Each structure stands twice: as C-alpha cells, then as structure tokens.
C-alpha cells in the first residue's frame, strides 16, 4: 500500500510539497505578528498530530489521551529550562536538551502506560486513555511546585549558546530588510522540528516497523502468525506517539510562552483527533494539513470577527468566532466521515488518479 503510494505520488506531489516548503521558508518575511504566532501554534500542532496519526491511522489504535502526553512534554520542557530559585522549580538546563527530554519523558510516560496500551485495542484503548486526561489535569493542578498549579507558569524562550529565539541576544537581526524578532526566529525552529517529525514518520511508515504495525491494524491474528509480537508492537507505537506528543507539547509551551492545566484537557485530545480525521487517518501530510486547519481556523475567526458581519462578540449571545469554528469542526468531521473516504488525503489521491488516468490512456492510444 505505502509503496504504491510513494511510487504513484511521483512528480506532482513532490512539486506540491516543495512549493509548500518554499512558502513556509519565505512567509515570515511578510507576515505580521498575528500570523507568525498562528503559524507557531499550527506547527506545534503538526508535530503532535503526526504522532497521533501513526497511532490511530497506521496501527489502528484510538487514543483520547493525547493531550496528557502533550501536557507532559510541555511541563517537562518548562521545568527543565525554568530559572532556578523562583516560586516554582526550575533546573536551568539548556533548552535543546530540555526539548529532547520533553520527548523522552513523554515517551517514558507512554511506555509506563503500555501494560494497558499493549493489551487493549481500538476503541477500548480510546476509553482507557480517556482516564489519562483527567488524571493529568489533576496532576497539573496539584503538583504546584512543578506546574504552578491552576494558574500555570511562564515558559523560558528557546536558545542555543550565543543565539536566543526571543527578541534579544542578538538584539537586532534583519534578513532582506525584515527585522527578525523572536517570532520570526521561532518560526524556523518550529519548521525544522516539524519537518524532522514528518521525515521520521515517513521513515517509520515505510519501514519494517511500519508494515508490522499496519498488519497488526488489519488483523492481530494474522500479524501474530507471521511472527509479529502484537503486544510489543502496540506498546511501541503508543510510546512513539507519546514522544511526538511530548515534543509537540514543548513547542506548544514555547508558542504560548505560558502554560496552564486548562490547555491540556479533553478538548485538546479531541482537537487532535479532528486534525487527523480531516486530513485522512494514517496520512502524514494529511495530519499536517488538518493540524494547520484546526489550529488556524479559531484564531483567524476570532481575529477577524469584527470584519465578518455574521459574527458577534463573545458573550453577547450571538454567534461568536470560537463557537462558529467549533460548529465548522463538528460539521467537517461528520461530512468527511460520511462522504470523503480517507479524508483530505484520500480525496486528493482519488482526484489525482482521475486526472492522471485519462492522460496515460491517451499516451497509450497515440
């Protein structure tokens, strides 16, 4: 399946990907702060969504607990880079190390859950992982020394020796006449991490491991009979998706620059499921597109609600931006599942085949 896709994806898809990459590289030169900030949220979501699509799409396991691992990553990063000696615990470690550790700690949390994750499948795992979100929220609120409790804590900006991804150090940096402040610098950091995440996920999907996972999804009995250890495979993919969630969570913490328990609730888990379903479950590119859509839509509707005549202010009882975006999500999920098999990715794939097929017939005829 995956080989056929890579082969038939061919030139047009590569060109599309290249164009998207060029756009992502060049955009910060023109975007204002609102759009830069929105882009950061979107790229942080891309990383987490890719992890979830590996779990749900490739291995066929449902998880409602993704927000928990995103929270683990976010808090791990924040605690490790935090300034020592403040109200809340901070270790003052180098941010790069903390980013890696965020993935590692979230992965360990996922591995700890493997006695359950390895034995349950599909929706049963989804239900069990629902518990993680609520346990997590309880932890975030009560471990005040680490998390700052209900009100949360602020996040130190990312930096490598001699260069900070904030407005200082160097204080002024310009590229092609555009001043590169913290948001611009972070944009490239996030883009690099997101690309790395996508590249690794493609590798996993087309590797031995990925094929083993797909066969576990299709039939556990068949997978076991060709020598795949089903329990280990399920535990492994759960751990891997937790690592993605952890790194995505650290990026999310950086983008927010302040984190609080309410950011990592069940709604976030559901948002991530929406992302991968809209994009097409199991597709890395689809998950990325879905992540961008889901994270950009509410922000844009809120930002431009004044200009949209049918939107009203929050609390006035009318239709506000946040409500409208939730209605759009809900309708989009239902519509995709009823009419668009395979989500955006599946739809594009069929469209491309329909476009490509007649031309190849013509070549044969001539």
């Amino acid at each position: 399946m995956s080989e056929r896709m890579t082969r038939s994806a061919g030139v047009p898809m590569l060109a599309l990907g290249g164009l998207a990459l060029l756009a992502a590289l060049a955009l910060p030169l023109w975007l204002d702060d609102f759009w830069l900030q929105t882009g950061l949220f979107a790229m942080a979501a891309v990383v987490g969504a890719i992890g979830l699509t590996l779990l749900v799409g490739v291995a066929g396991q449902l998880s409602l607990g993704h927000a928990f691992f995103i929270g683990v990553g976010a808090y791990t990063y924040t605690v490790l880079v935090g300034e020592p000696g403040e109200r809340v615990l901070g270790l003052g470690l180098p941010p790069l190390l903390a980013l890696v550790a965020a993935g590692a700690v979230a992965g360990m949390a996922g591995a700890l859950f493997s006695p359950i994750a390895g034995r349950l499948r599909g929706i049963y795992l989804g239900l069990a992982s629902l518990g993680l979100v609520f346990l997590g929220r309880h932890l975030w609120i009560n471990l005040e020394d680490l998390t700052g409790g209900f009100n949360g804590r602020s996040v130190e900006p990312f930096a490598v020796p001699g260069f900070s991804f904030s407005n200082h150090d160097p204080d002024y940096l310009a590229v092609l006449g555009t001043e590169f402040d913290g948001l611009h610098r972070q944009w490239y950091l996030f883009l690099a991490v997101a690309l790395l995440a996508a590249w690794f996920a493609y590798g996993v999907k087309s590797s031995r491991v990925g094929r083993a996972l797909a066969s576990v999804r299709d039939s556990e009995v068949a997978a076991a009979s060709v020598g795949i250890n089903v329990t280990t495979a399920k535990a492994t993919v759960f751990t891997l998706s937790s690592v993605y969630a952890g790194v995505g969570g650290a990026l999310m913490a950086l983008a927010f620059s302040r984190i609080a328990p309410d950011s990592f609730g069940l709604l976030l888990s559901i948002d991530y499921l929406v992302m991968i379903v809209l994009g097409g479950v199991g597709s890395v590119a689809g998950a990325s597109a879905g992540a961008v859509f889901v994270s950009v839509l509410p922000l844009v509707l809120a930002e431009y609600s004044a200009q949209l005549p049918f939107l009203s202010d929050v609390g006035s009882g009318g239709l506000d931006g946040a409500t409208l975006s939730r209605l759009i999500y809900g309708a989009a999920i239902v519509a995709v599942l009823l009419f668009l098999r395979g989500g955006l990715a599946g739809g594009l794939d069929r469209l491309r085949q329909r476009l490509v097929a007649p031309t190849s017939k013509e070549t044969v005829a001539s």
Partner: protein
Amino acid sequence: MSYLLSQLVNGLSLGLVLGLIAVGFVVVFKATGVLNLAHGSVLLLGAYLVAKLHEPLGFWLAAAAGVLGAAVVAALINTLLVRRVAEPNPGTFAILTIGVDILLLTELTREIGNDVLSNGAPWGADVVEFAGVTLPASRAIAAVLAIVLFGVLGLLAARTNWGIGMRAAAADGDTASLMGIRLSRTSATGWALAGAFAAIAGVFLTSFPATGVTPSVSLVALAAIPAWVLGGFDSIPGAIVGGLVIGVAQAFAVGYESELHFLGRGFGEVVPYAVMLLVLLVRPQGLFGGKEAIRV
C-alpha cells in the same frame, strides 16, 4: 458510623443514576458496535428541553417531551449518520459521534449561555430521612426509578424480539441480517432507549443538590464511561454494578476528602477514571465482560 452510612447511601443513589447512563452505552454498543461519545450531549439536550418547557407545559409533560426528544435525536443520529458512514468500523463510528457531540454541545452551550436553568421538578430541594440517613428526595426518586427501569430493560433484553435482535447483532450482524432480523429497527430502538435513559438521568443530575442545567452536565456522562468500562463493555448488569462502584468510590472520595488530602485537591472528580485504570490493569475485559474470542 452514620456518616459512613450516609456517604454509602449517597454513593449508591448516585451510582444508580450513573448506571442509567452506562446502560445506554452498553445498549448502543451491543446493538450497533458504536462507542457513543455523543451520549453526554444527548443527556444535556434532554435536561435542557425539560428546563425550557417546564414553564409552559408543567414539569411532567416537559419531562416526557425531554425524554422523547432525546430518544428521537439519538435514534436520528444512528439512522441518518452512523449507518451511512463511508468506512464503517468502531474507530470511525467513535470519531463520528465526537463530531456530533461537538455540534450538539456547541449549539446547546450557546443556547444556555451563562445561565443556570432550573428544571422545575416538583420535589425541589426536599430531603427524605430514614434510619438516620438524609438523602435528597431527587436522589431517592432517581434510585427507585432507576431500579424499575433496569428491570424493564432487563425484561426487554431477555424476552422481546428486540432483545434477541440486539444480542444477535452483537454476536454477528451479517448473519443476523440474513436470518431476517431488521438491524435498522433493532439499532434505532437501542439508540432511542439509550437516549431516553440518558435524558431521565439528566433530569435527576440537574435537580437538587445540583444547581440546574449548565453545559458541564454533559461531562457527567463521561464519568459514566468508567462505569461502563468497569462492568465490561457488553454487559447490562455489569454497567449497573460499574455505576454503583463508581458512585460509591466518588462519594467516599468527596466525603472523606480531608483524610485523603495527600491525593490532592478535587480528587473526587478523578476517582472514576483512577478506578477504571486500576481495574483495566488487572482485568482488561472489565469485571463482567466476556473475554473476547478471536476467530480466524
């Protein structure tokens, strides 16, 4: 001692209400194989209809309308959406119901706004007392009604064609169809029953000691998911026992919070999920669930 007893009675009465919600999950799951994550917003819809209609219609008519409305909406979710999914499998069903839940919950949240709607129940804030235990009248009535409803559901499941159809659908849907069982009817009935039970639970969950109808009531249905999972996914008695376990555990965690301080503030809200995870660690199939046999 009497404190312990009153916590126990409170927990059991809450557990019976949770059981009403949890059997809805079981019936829908058995009849159609769907994990219905829209259950909470259907519950809220029922409670909302009662609160909106009790002034013009009076409480009892409003309650009937709320129960009927929730049943019809639940059956429609099944007939119009679930049965038309492009790729039918448990995962897509679950995610579809998330979509429905987002739509329904967002709209109801907008309708309710920041208000707390009263449902105008005639028992108001009365309490009943027996054997030194005080219990809100709403809880006592809920407990009695729940036991009656469980009996009715048990009879329906054991003695009627619908019950046979449901069990046949759970065992093997395709074969059941071939044998002349109309799955569309079986599943619609299952969903409608689940919706009606949820609405009834919703009325009691929004009566005293709760303040009224707010959007957060739909979260209570989520607390019934551990009850369902605990009992095993396909067992009606299991869901009832699961509800009782969760209800009692939650009542004790809240009632003895001062002694459980090391577990952190607000542990009562987390208890259902903690209990569920512990049980799943030991028995992945739940307390009453049959171990799944895999045929090749």
